[in-house]
């Protein structure tokens, strides 16, 4: 717990950088959903939690190899995303936007309670150790480095998908004008479903990476959820590059605050910073004012 400019401080900064990769990945899916469907999935972190349990159950209980487990978990959470959109979001798409946020609040309660009942409140750990990577006197956990790399790849892949495929172009068009695109022959219902599947898939991907680093418990969503919303809003809801930059800023607040004081203070300062920035730039750091 020192705040001197020594090797530990440098380690904290670099670890913050790696932590930012995970946060950026979490924010990516939520940003896509918001940008395209104009809905905030307040239960997004709970989808990640479901994904983590899926990995744990499939790998530990059924003995499926880890890589195959990851693929299955991503598909499962993607399906959950589609189901969420179909059953819960679609009936309220034409009502005031706040209803859509609150209805997913109901899903948050539901998923948390369902996970508690199915898996218990105990902390579970997958028990996969990837070791650490030494640089001089500093050590970096391998799983964090992998997470960082995957987050970068996922962002580039998503960008390419939106840029190069027909449905990707349609999705971008819908995010720019929701009313006109159906007249241009784009099936917005299909685009929404694809978007929900990708958003869910990204949550599943994040889940696969998080089980390597964190214990699994039903309330883990509450630990990450508010943080991810804050990053999305800070970067400008729907702005994926902004979300990436915001993730780096917030991660630095948390890790440096955590290294200097205590973890909660790192988080508290990050939330305070967010509230203040919102007053100065309510559209987020990189958002356009509409």
């Amino acid at each position, binding site marked *: 717990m020192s705040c001197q400019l020594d090797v530990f401080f440098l380690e904290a900064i670099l670890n913050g950088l790696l932590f930012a990769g995970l946060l950026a990945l979490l924010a990516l899916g939520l940003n896509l959903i918001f940008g395209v469907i104009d809905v*905030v999935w307040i239960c997004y972190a709970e989808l990640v939690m479901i994904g983590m349990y899926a990995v744990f159950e499939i790998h530990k209980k059924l003995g499926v190899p880890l890589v195959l487990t990851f693929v299955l978990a991503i598909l499962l959470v993607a399906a959950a995303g589609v189901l969420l959109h179909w059953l819960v979001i679609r009936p309220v798409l034409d009502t005031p936007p*706040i209803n859509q*946020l609150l209805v997913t609040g*109901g899903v948050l309660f539901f998923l948390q309670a369902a996970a508690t009942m199915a898996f218990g409140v105990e902390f579970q750990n997958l028990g996969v150790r990837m070791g650490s990577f030494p640089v001089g006197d500093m050590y970096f956990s391998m799983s964090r480095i992998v997470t960082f790399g995957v987050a970068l790849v996922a962002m580039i892949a998503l960008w390419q998908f939106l840029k190069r495929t027909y449905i990707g172009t349609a999705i971008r068009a819908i995010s720019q004008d929701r009313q006109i695109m159906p007249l241009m022959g784009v099936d917005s219902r299909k685009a929404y479903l694809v978007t929900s599947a990708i958003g869910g898939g990204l949550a599943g991907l994040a889940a696969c990476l998080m089980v390597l680093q964190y214990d699994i418990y039903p309330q883990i969503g509450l630990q990450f*959820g*508010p943080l991810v919303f804050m990053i999305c809003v800070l970067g400008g809801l729907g702005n994926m590059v902004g979300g990436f930059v915001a993730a780096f800023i917030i991660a630095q607040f948390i890790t440096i605050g955590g290294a200097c004081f205590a973890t909660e203070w790192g988080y508290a300062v990050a*939330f305070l910073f967010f509230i203040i920035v919102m007053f100065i730039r309510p559209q987020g750091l990189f958002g356009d004012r509409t």
Partner: protein
Amino acid sequence: MTRRINPFYVAGLVALVALPFVVKAVFPDAQRYYLHLAIQILLWAFVYTGWSLMGRFGLVSLGHAAFTGVGAYVTVLLWNFAGLSPLLGIPVAVLLAVVLSQVVGYPCFHQRIRGHYFALLTLALTEFVRLCIVGLRDYTGGSLGTQPKRYDGGLSLYAVQFEPDRTLAYFIALVIWVIGLIIWVRVDRSMNRYALDAASQDEEAAASVGINVTVAKLKVTAISAAMCAFGGAIYGQYQMYIGPDTVAGLTLSLNIVFAVIAGGIWVMLGPTLGAVLTQVLAETLRVGIQSSATLKAWFGSSALALDSLVYGVLLILFIIYMPKGILGTILEWWNRKPRR
């Protein structure tokens, strides 16, 4: 000006005053438990009513758990560490919560932050207050929570402690709840209400006819925050325990929103009905699980999550099929009926 008083309200109030005596006569063994349930319903109904003052105008705040948290914690900390009687401590806590609400509210309303952004920004406020509570663990007990120091056997006006005497606690809660409803009616009949109704439909249009939207919103935010802080403080004094998850945090914020929406956000007794519904639901499920061997065998102690599961499903169904809430829908149906 004389106003005709609805006979239903008078009858209802008489029934509520008589309730503890009826409970004593009918359930002499379990009266403490039933009164405890009633007290919790009344205190939460007060908090929910406070939230609905903002919620009904489209100001859906997820930040009210911050105000209940400030109310409860400041009161208890002043009592435990400065020896300041809650008689002064509660006003100080309420004032602090109001100041906090204005400090956050002014830039919010001035910058026209609304919808998703408002909900997520207020969510950040809730998290900030919760993290401060956990972070100040030397004073607040961190995530384990803390207790106000007992004074004079736990029954004292000076320390505002009344937990052992359930009948007294019930009447305190009843008076607070009635005051909450009076505040609701006053706001409902004020000019501010029309201003805010207009602003919630179209803010720019409302501003263009001379409504100071920011001031109107700030006023209702102050009242709403004060009610939540007061409710949180009294709840802490009654429970004689406060924890970051019972009086603060995102789950509490969502609980408030759920109860109000289920009961009916636009009608006076909607939040109260929401409190009755959520408390009775949670208690029935809890008792039902504890007495059912099958459920216990299946899920063990995690069966206690069943109430959240039902909450979640109900919240989804209410928003999709009954956005006016139970009481709102009933009243609408009642008023539509041709009157003789």
